[in-house]
């Protein structure tokens, strides 16, 4: 265990910035957001959670895959085409072959030049992540890393492999935190290259990987005293007690499978406005769109964040849309995170940060949704007369999540989905 004085934090970040871009939570017009850090910027660690996650630094909101340009090259430089009469201009339209030809232009000659997207990955150090933020990366690593023999995403992985994640454990979890309910915790180390815990005059830090050890080579780190190490352990334990476990994880996947047609999805999604806020603030939602944008003869193919609440997300060219109904899109997000993704990648796709609850315009509560759907009671499509009861159950579960009520002993019994 090492110790860093609070006052040495800027020097530590300065040291790191010699070889990497440093990203840290900072105040941006009153909101705490991860931003590139420069000397003199205050690091905002009093606020528990940044407004958005830090995923944009490994998985940017948009990035070009390739750029292209059509060159107009004279005919002499280019092989002829079969359709030479393509640009005949006719005065009248008298059917096939009719009308007088008044001009003939050379067929347009398009040479296409494609330039692969630059690999712009540079080393990054993201300091000030919370355990749920870091865990989000670990969860996304599966899909982008080709887990199970699928494809490997070079864009994500080039950034990910050059990123060092320095996690600061949580001193004061929010009432909306439920990391413990998904196999994590306010002192969780999954994904962390080094784990920091804040104590009154500084940080107790521990390297967990070689990257983390390298980061901690800054001379300001000294061996932590016993008192300091003890204070850190107490802080972590205190934080653990503040996070409750609001729904049962065991059997959740099967319950979701059984509840696919349940009318409860319609009830739970009533106040959803089908925007993308929850998806975009989430540390591990990753669905994206690929789109070509061109201005005249040149352009780029971009990848950009998308979200399954987008009404046209699954819209097919025929006009058919399998998820035309809002409650079906709503259902898809929860199923993706707690059934489909775990089934494919042996990992949940939620780290319990609770941002989706706090920033949803109508405060849809994922804990309530999973509490209701995970109860294993699938309603038929009749009038939901039992709905009030399950709503009460959901709300009671949420009520129990009030900060300060100990929920110890309710270790989330994952069905093999999570390894600590």
């Amino acid at each position, binding site marked *: 265990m090492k110790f860093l004085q609070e006052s040495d934090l800027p020097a530590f970040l300065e040291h790191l910035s010699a070889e990497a871009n440093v990203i840290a939570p900072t105040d941006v017009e009153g909101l705490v957001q991860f931003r590139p850090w420069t000397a003199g910027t205050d690091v905002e660690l009093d606020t528990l959670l940044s407004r958005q996650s830090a995923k944009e630094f490994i998985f940017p909101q948009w990035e070009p*895959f*390739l*750029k*292209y*340009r*059509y*060159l*107009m*090259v*004279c005919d002499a*430089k280019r092989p002829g*085409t*079969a*359709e030479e009469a*393509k640009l005949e201009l006719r005065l009248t339209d008298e059917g096939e072959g009719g009308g007088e030809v008044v001009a003939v*232009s050379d*067929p347009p*000659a*398009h*040479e*296409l*030049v*494609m*330039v*692969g997207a630059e690999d712009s990955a540079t080393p990054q150090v993201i300091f000030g992540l919370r355990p749920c933020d870091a865990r989000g990366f670990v969860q996304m690593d599966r*899909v*982008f890393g080709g887990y199970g023999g*699928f*494809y*490997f*995403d*070079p*864009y994500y992985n080039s950034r990910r492999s050059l990123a060092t994640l320095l996690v600061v454990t949580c001193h004061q979890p929010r009432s909306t935190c439920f990391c413990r309910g998904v196999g994590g915790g306010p002192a969780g180390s999954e994904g962390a290259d080094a784990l920091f815990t804040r104590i009154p005059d500084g940080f107790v830090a521990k390297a967990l990987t070689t990257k983390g050890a390298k980061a901690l080579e800054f001379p300001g780190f000294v061996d932590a005293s016993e008192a300091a190490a003890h204070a850190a352990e107490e802080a972590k334990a205190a934080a653990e007690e503040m996070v409750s476990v609001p729904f049962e994880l065991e059997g959740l996947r099967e319950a979701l*499978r059984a509840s*696919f*047609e349940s009318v409860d999805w319609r009830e739970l999604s009533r106040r959803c406005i089908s925007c993308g806020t929850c998806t975009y603030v989430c540390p591990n939602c*990753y669905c*994206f*769109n*690929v789109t*070509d*944008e*061109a201005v*005249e*003869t*040149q*352009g780029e193919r971009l990848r950009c964040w*998308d979200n*399954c609440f987008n009404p046209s997300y699954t*819209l*097919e*060219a025929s006009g058919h849309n*399998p*998820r035309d109904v809002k409650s*079906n899109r709503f259902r*898809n997000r929860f*199923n993706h995170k707690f*059934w*489909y993704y775990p*089934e494919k990648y042996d990992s949940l796709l939620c780290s319990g940060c609770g941002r989706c609850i706090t920033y949803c315009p109508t405060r849809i509560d994922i804990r309530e949704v999973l509490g209701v759907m995970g109860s294993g009671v699938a309603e038929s499509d009749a009038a939901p007369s039992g709905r009030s009861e399950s709503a009460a159950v959901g709300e009671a579960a949420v009520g129990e999540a009030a900060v300060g009520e100990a929920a110890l002993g309710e270790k989330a019994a994952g069905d093999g989905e999570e390894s600590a």
Partner: protein
Amino acid sequence: MTDELRPEQGGQEEVDCSSGKNTLTLADVEALASIPRAGTRSGNPYLPEMATVVEIIQETPNVKSFRVRFSDEEVMERFTFEPGQVGQLGIYGVGESTFAINSSSSNKDYLQFSVMQAGEVTTALHQLSVGDKVGVRAPMGRPFPVREWKGKNLLFIMGGIGSAALRATVLHCLEHRADYGDVTILYGARTPVDLTFGYDIEEWQSRNDVQTVVTVDAEFPGWEGRVGFVPTVLEELAPGPVDTMAVLCGPPIMIKFCLQVLERLQFADEQVYTTLEKRMKCGIGICGRCNVGPKYVCVDGPVFTMAELRELPDEL
């Protein structure tokens, strides 16, 4: 869009096209053409391989088949795929769409994709000329298990443009005819004008080791062949289920009724195969869009058995 793509002025003689829009020097063109391009062989599955359109066949009023060759000869030579696999055919500046590779997997001259004009990308594809450049990302997806089918009877049921999804598989099985038992091809379309691959149908009908039945939905002037909806004709043909694999593709309504017929004919769900379509983007199981429940059509499919489909939630 960005300054880095603007050509530098000066150099050797100006090469100017008639519109005068882009003015480049020869040096520019040569320099740009020599920039190495990343392709799928480079480990980046998002980057297409450049290909050239070598032939376009108007199959029906709204369906064209595009035969494309990879610009890189080595890529063309080394390219292989399994019947039932798909590819993303795209135009730079417009986008990509997923189509079955429906040339035979033994064809080393070109890849064929058949495109029905429906949306933005397919409309742009329909405006291509021979010699134009396209991007291809292929092969993708799970193929039909043609080796597992050895020794079995095969029943191909195709409706309209659904034939495109099965053509490569039909060709493979006919090329390896001795590996299979009875082979029946049932192909129907709304009208004779909507039948694709006329050149294939003639050949299949001329073979005496294949039962080829072509039908149209209703009487049509000049049509001397069979008349009847595909499910109806299927029921009339009444193929036996023993040691038989049924492979179907076509409009949803056709599939729905054919499945009912196959059930009446005692086909088990494991004996019935189909191939699905969905809105796709990455095509490589990452972007999260094309899922039916926990399965991605682009990597877990597009080929599925009915048994597998029954396990999936109803969101086709």
